[in-house]
């Protein structure tokens, strides 16, 4: 179980992590600024195992991999959205952050509710109601299962 943090449609990568923090030396130094413009308390409130829930086109805008990386570094277990912008989606899978497309969930949940996610079943459960999520493309699922693209690269080149 984890708490869900609910965001709107078209959340762009500048809102996830703003430009002025991107050249900080490490993700660890950036992560306290996650979602700063939308919810300044997010980075201090979120706990490992919590979820980000959003509507359409989550992660639109820049290709900054810092966006999924700060979420992962804060312990966000998965992002569940109606749809994702493609670069964010690909980056998240590459770093091993599950990004789950679920069309129905968003309209039936409130910010702060407890949620359970089964990656193997492809379901999300909130206040007893279970929503089915779209299965990942097998190629991408395989990257995620290996722990991300670099883990799979290290394995290929072992």
């Amino acid at each position: 179980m984890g708490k869900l943090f609910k965001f709107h449609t078209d959340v762009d990568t500048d809102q996830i992590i703003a430009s002025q923090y991107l050249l900080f030396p490490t993700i660890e130094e950036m992560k306290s600024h996650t979602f700063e413009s939308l919810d300044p308390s997010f980075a201090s409130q979120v706990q490992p195992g919590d979820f980000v829930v959003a509507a359409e086109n989550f992660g639109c805008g820049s290709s900054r991999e810092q966006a999924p990386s700060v979420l992962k570094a804060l312990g966000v277990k998965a992002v569940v959205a109606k749809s994702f912008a493609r670069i964010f989606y690909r980056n998240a899978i590459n770093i091993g952050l599950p990004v789950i497309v679920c069309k129905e969930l968003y309209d039936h949940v409130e910010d702060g509710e407890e949620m359970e996610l089964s990656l193997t079943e492809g379901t999300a459960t909130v206040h007893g109601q279970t929503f089915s999520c779209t299965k990942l493309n097998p190629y991408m699922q395989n990257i995620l299962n290996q722990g991300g693209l670099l883990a799979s690269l290290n394995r290929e080149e072992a």
Partner: protein
Amino acid sequence: MGMTLAEKIIASAAGVESVRPGDIHTVELDLLMSNDGTTHLTIDMYHKLRHPHIADVNKLVWIVDHNMPSDSPKTAASQKKMRDFAKENGIPFYEGKGVCHQIMMENHVRPGQLIFGADSHTCAYGALGAFGTGVGCTDYLYAMVTGKSWVLVPESLKFNLTGKLNHGVTARDLILTIIGRIGANGANYKAMEFSGEGLKTLTMSDRIAVCNLCVEAGAKTALMEADEVALDYLSSRGRTPKAVFHADEDAAYAQTYEVNLSEIVPVVAKPHFVDQVVPAAECLGTHIDEAFLGSCNNGRIEDLRAAAAILKGRKVADTVRFLVVPASGEIYRQALEEGLLTTFMEAGAIVMNANCSVCWGSCQGVIGEGETLISTGTRNFKGRAGHPGSFVYLASAETVTASAIAGEITTADRLPKREG
């Protein structure tokens, strides 16, 4: 069934006869561009690999352009890491020479190539018939080490351009209008292909402006056939195509849009989204504090010439900081030789070094709470140019310049006549 431009380039890079949307292919990459926005993280990950190595150093191009020159000790450290690594490994490296995509267009991109750039506006390379797409640093690193990557073949949208842009209307107005029409995710996961008689009327600078902004509709890439205009530009720069592809007559498109260029009017994208596009006429009188002419979208010599022609004999409003930032060092020098920089300075504009500047809101010209910027940059997201409580309007070089003179949003044809 025939193939679209995107499908042809992927098939070529994958070494297969044909591809279909939804297929995943392993492709050989031609070029890998990375800038100071993420390269320091790529290098950290590189050093953690079990067998760190570079497949082909000559496919890499590294460019420091985002926070150029650096604005803080932290930035300086990240850029030093990039500079040192490039030097140690013999990676082609630019610093202070301009915005990455402009440098790539001037010096590297060739028709028919498949290019990954660790920057979302890499789709600009479609103006030369190359498949450019933005990636994060993990994708970049994988490609840097293996020379390859995986690509999901996108569906293509066709934009059939007819007619000709009217005087005072620009390619910037055209692409903003298209993004307004299809929405911020209207081309998500898709390729945007531009063709038709109207395309022939667009200059290289126009084409770069159009392709560059397509990611703001979510596009994976933007493509134009490399015709005479593109090939002339290429040969003037001493380069030859890798391959010139033509979309097949019977290629399948997810959707076709008809766009009559003569119907486009000057527009602005209102805060806080690139698809919030309205005719500029609807925003007349909106107070501005700062104006920005520059970026990979609109900092070329043609944009500077258009701005200087409007500014000549006029002054920037006392209440406005007008930042003029050529997109590359080469453009800067050309503007200097043509006397444009004198015109800007006499009018009270601030001419700055070639870099990403306030388009990315971290380096120079950052605006404060409650302030409003009108910009030729790529994005107007909340806080994009500085404080989350500031506002960014996107418009053409002409509209930005006219607004800088008026101190409020206006178009060039609405300015009072010059004195004398």
